[in-house]
């Protein structure tokens, strides 16, 4: 009889043992949720938004963006000051002496050189290698290494040992070559001098990008060694693990269990740790969008950084209803110039108010294939800018944003979200039927579009194909656009829904007529958006080719006067959104946050949507100053001193 209990006891022991070995930690000061699992904590290999956001907790670059400033100004970080040469090519950074790694070692200029060299190795294929190619000699170094690696397999060797030795020699040679070719030097531990190929007015913006963060060479180097047969550096995972990772940011990684959670504790060696108002951050991994919202509602989570639940449109609508109930106060606060999170904090607390639609640094648009012929060989009517303009006029952007997306997103008449880049004035763009003030204006737009089609001899019975990938509601948007084109332009449309992979393939090979697209900016300069329409750019899916446009971008890249340069870029964008319309901007994306503005402060409302979680202060705890951190207007410029 008792023997029957043995299997039960065995199972019981198993459960007890695993429960005992897996004791939960106390709740962190801040619990936040990312949209998906972090891919990598190696800053030079990152490209995802949530990876970069996590990287800013762990690493600190030379400079940073002041995300709570309306201008997103560049502020000192590891570099306490810097100078720029008169020709705007040479930057000299002076590193602060108290910047330390989490093992108490000082952060030196050599750490930056090492990290940037990693990013420039073709072996490790950084997604953002192009940003580093701005440095003088970087392209030459990259090409040299690439050539050496291509030649290596064909070199004759007597034995495997010889081959291995040669692989190591090539690596040593590569390091010397880097010192030789690339204009990046560290005359002492606290000075970093970088010379650019040509002036890059947004170079400091790049330096604030997490991919430019330093890594600790003694930690990383052992994980990267040349492969004995191909001579390429082989990358082994392992150094980005809790207990192993050495970082220089406000926080250190203390736990990372895949698909489960990450935990960060304040870095005791961080030079500015006294200004960090929270001691620990917990990022559980909740992939189900609905479960994330439910967990927020039970109070387990303080901030969801990207709500993707299917009913988020309703959440935004409820928030709007809440704001409408307090319309008078809201109008008053807005007139005072307060930001939206501050207004939420000043209004009475209400669960509906915890949803926040924050404008993003991205735009949803429709591409035109601008090639003279279509994939099937017939003449492409969309090669004519007048046709593209006519189609752009007849998109009801308002109804796409308000009735389909329902996230409070602004309709777009430009590619670059307005007011997202300091010093840049967006062109007006074309009107569209959705944003027309009244029926008369609407009719005028339609008449104008019809006239344009007539002028361009748009063929009768032409079937306009619209390509989009399935999921995420792209089908609904395509249907709405198709409907207004049918109605107002009298054209026939055909919707083509494809798997993401096929859709992308068609886009790259220009096997389409019109197709949905989206673009998010990487850094705070108009070129992050405008470059994709350059005729030679790899992301020019439209096959758009306008020599005047290309020339304007070229001209901007040599213009040293910032104001003039911005004016040139603004003119370039005007060509895109008013004359040539290789794409129709539909709306600017919003990201949906969930947090209680009465409790969480330190998040930015700036359209660049870059959040530094280490700035967060929980107003209801006993840590930190517990002072609200509103957005600042025209913050005093932190002039770098030599």
């Amino acid at each position: 009889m008792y023997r029957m209990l043995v299997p039960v006891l065995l199972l019981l022991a198993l459960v007890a043992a695993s429960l005992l070995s897996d004791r939960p930690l106390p709740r962190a000061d801040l619990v936040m949720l990312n949209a998906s699992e972090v891919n990598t904590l190696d800053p030079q290999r990152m490209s995802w938004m949530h990876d970069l956001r996590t990287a800013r907790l762990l690493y600190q670059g030379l400079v940073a963006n002041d995300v709570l400033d309306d201008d997103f100004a560049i502020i000192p970080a590891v570099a306490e000051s810097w100078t720029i040469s008169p020709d705007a090519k040479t930057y000299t950074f002076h590193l602060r002496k108290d910047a330390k790694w989490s093992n108490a070692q000082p952060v030196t200029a050599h750490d930056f050189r090492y990290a940037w060299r990693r990013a420039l190795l073709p072996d490790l294929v950084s997604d953002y290698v192009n940003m580093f190619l701005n440095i003088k000699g970087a392209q030459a170094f990259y090409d040299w290494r690439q050539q050496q690696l291509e030649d290596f397999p064909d070199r004759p060797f007597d034995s495997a040992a010889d081959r291995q030795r040669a692989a190591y020699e090539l690596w040593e040679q590569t390091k010397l070559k880097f010192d030789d070719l690339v204009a990046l030097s560290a005359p002492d531990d606290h000075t970093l001098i970088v010379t650019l190929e040509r002036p890059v007015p947004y170079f400091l913006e790049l330096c604030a990008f997490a991919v430019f963060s330093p890594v600790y060479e003694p930690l990383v180097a052992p994980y990267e060694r040349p492969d004995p047969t191909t001579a390429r550096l082989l990358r082994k995972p392992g150094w980005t693990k809790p207990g192993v990772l050495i970082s220089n940011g406000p926080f250190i990684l203390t736990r990372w269990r895949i698909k489960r959670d990450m935990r960060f504790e304040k870095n005791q060696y961080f030079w500015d740790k006294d200004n960090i108002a929270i001691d620990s951050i917990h990022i559980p991994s909740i992939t189900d969008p609905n479960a994330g919202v439910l967990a927020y509602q039970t109070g387990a989570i303080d901030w969801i950084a990207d709500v993707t639940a299917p009913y988020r449109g309703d959440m935004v609508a409820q928030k709007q209803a809440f704001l409408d109930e307090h319309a008078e106060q809201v109008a008053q606060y807005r007139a005072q110039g307060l930001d939206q999170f501050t207004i939420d904090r000043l209004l009475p607390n209400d669960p509906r108010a915890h949803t926040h639609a924050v404008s993003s640094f991205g735009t949803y648009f429709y591409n035109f294939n601008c090639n003279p012929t279509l994939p099937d060989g017939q003449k492409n009517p969309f090669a004519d800018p007048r046709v593209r303009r006519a189609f752009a006029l007849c998109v009801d952007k308002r109804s796409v944003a308000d009735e389909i997306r329902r996230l409070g997103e602004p309709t777009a008449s430009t590619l670059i979200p307005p007011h997202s880049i300091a010093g840049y004035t967006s062109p007006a763009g074309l009107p569209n039927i959705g944003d027309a003030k009244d029926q008369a204006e609407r009719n005028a737009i339609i008449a104008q579009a019809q006239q344009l089609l007539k002028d361009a001899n748009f063929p009768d019975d032409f079937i306009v194909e619209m390509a989009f990938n399935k999921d995420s509601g792209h089908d609904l948007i395509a249907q709405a656009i198709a409907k207004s084109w049918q109605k107002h332009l009298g054209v026939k449309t055909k919707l083509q829904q494809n798997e993401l992979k096929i859709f992308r393939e068609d886009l790259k090979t220009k096997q389409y007529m019109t197709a949905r697209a989206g673009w998010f900016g990487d850094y705070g300069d108009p070129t992050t958006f405008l470059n994709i329409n350059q005729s030679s750019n790899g992301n020019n899916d439209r096959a758009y080719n306008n020599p005047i446009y290309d020339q304007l971008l070229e001209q901007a890249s040599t213009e040293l006067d910032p104001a003039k340069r911005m004016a040139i870029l603004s003119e370039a964008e005007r060509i895109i959104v008013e004359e040539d319309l290789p794409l129709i901007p539909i709306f600017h994306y919003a990201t949906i946050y969930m947090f209680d503005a009465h409790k969480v402060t330190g998040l930015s409302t700036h359209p660049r949507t870059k959040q530094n979680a280490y700035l967060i202060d929980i107003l209801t705890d006993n840590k930190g100053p517990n002072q609200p951190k509103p957005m600042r207007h025209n913050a005093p410029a932190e002039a770098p001193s030599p």
Partner: protein
Amino acid sequence: MMTLILRRLLALPIILIIIYTITLTLAWAVPGNPLENPEKRPKPEVIEQMNKQYNLDSFPRFYISYLTSATGIKYASDTLSGQLQRERDAASAQDTPLPARPIFDLGPSLKYDDQTVNEIIRDTLPVSITLGASAILIALFVGIGAGIIGAVKPNSLADLSTLAISMIGISLPSFVIGTVMLLIFSLWLGWFPIAQWGTPKSIVLPALTLSLPFAAYIARLTRMGMIDALGADYIRTARAKGAPERSVLLKHALKNAFLPVLSFLGPATAMAMTGSFVIERVFTVPGMGEHFVNAVQNKDLFLIIGVVLVFATMLIVFNLIVDVLYKWIDPRIE
């Protein structure tokens, strides 16, 4: 007994190699490169390099290299031949000490840049084991209890209602039951946390949901076994000699009725511990089941093979344990 264990343990590697071969062949036959990612399009030379690095360009080379590193043969041969020492020396000479290397290396994950398959399994398997073991425990108590009740008074109201409940348990998909439970007990009543694995409280709902089909099956097995046993001669004898009913049921009848349950327990435990993908999704449990499905979708070759091998090993080991217990509980079995 010892020969049984020995024989099974000897068969284990052979079975695993067969499973490995089949899995790899199937996974290899799926079109598309595991490194192709529609979101991020790596440059062709990157794909080529990674193909080379991981032997993804040649089936036989991959087959051998994975086999040798996963079984520890590579580690052993590198140690014996002095290769490992040479590498270490070379690395130390360059001031870059070699990071520790696992003996049984199941390879990197092609999808998760910073993870190895060893780490993924190390992080997720304990979670799945906790969940699975708790579910089987619940299933045992509930199932056997219900089975006995049903057998004592066959076709009574109690029997029919346990039958009905177990039919629901078997036929209702777990995402429906799970969602309903989440709604009632977590959201409305607030008894259990949502999406926070780790505390005993957080295990209750997923374990309960996961246990339902197993409990239903165990109830049916117990009921059948009990009805058979209760009609047997030795039960009549026991009753004739005046043994109390409780002892007749639990001591005499259950002992025989339990044996089919026990043999079900082996595969059921392995199944509960690894095949809880849906439950893991609904309750956000960070277990291994998710990787079973996602690894295939992502064509994460190393991870696919890794989780399949772990599952196969567990299945074999649990069956072995059950067989040993079986023999020990019922010495009549040869």
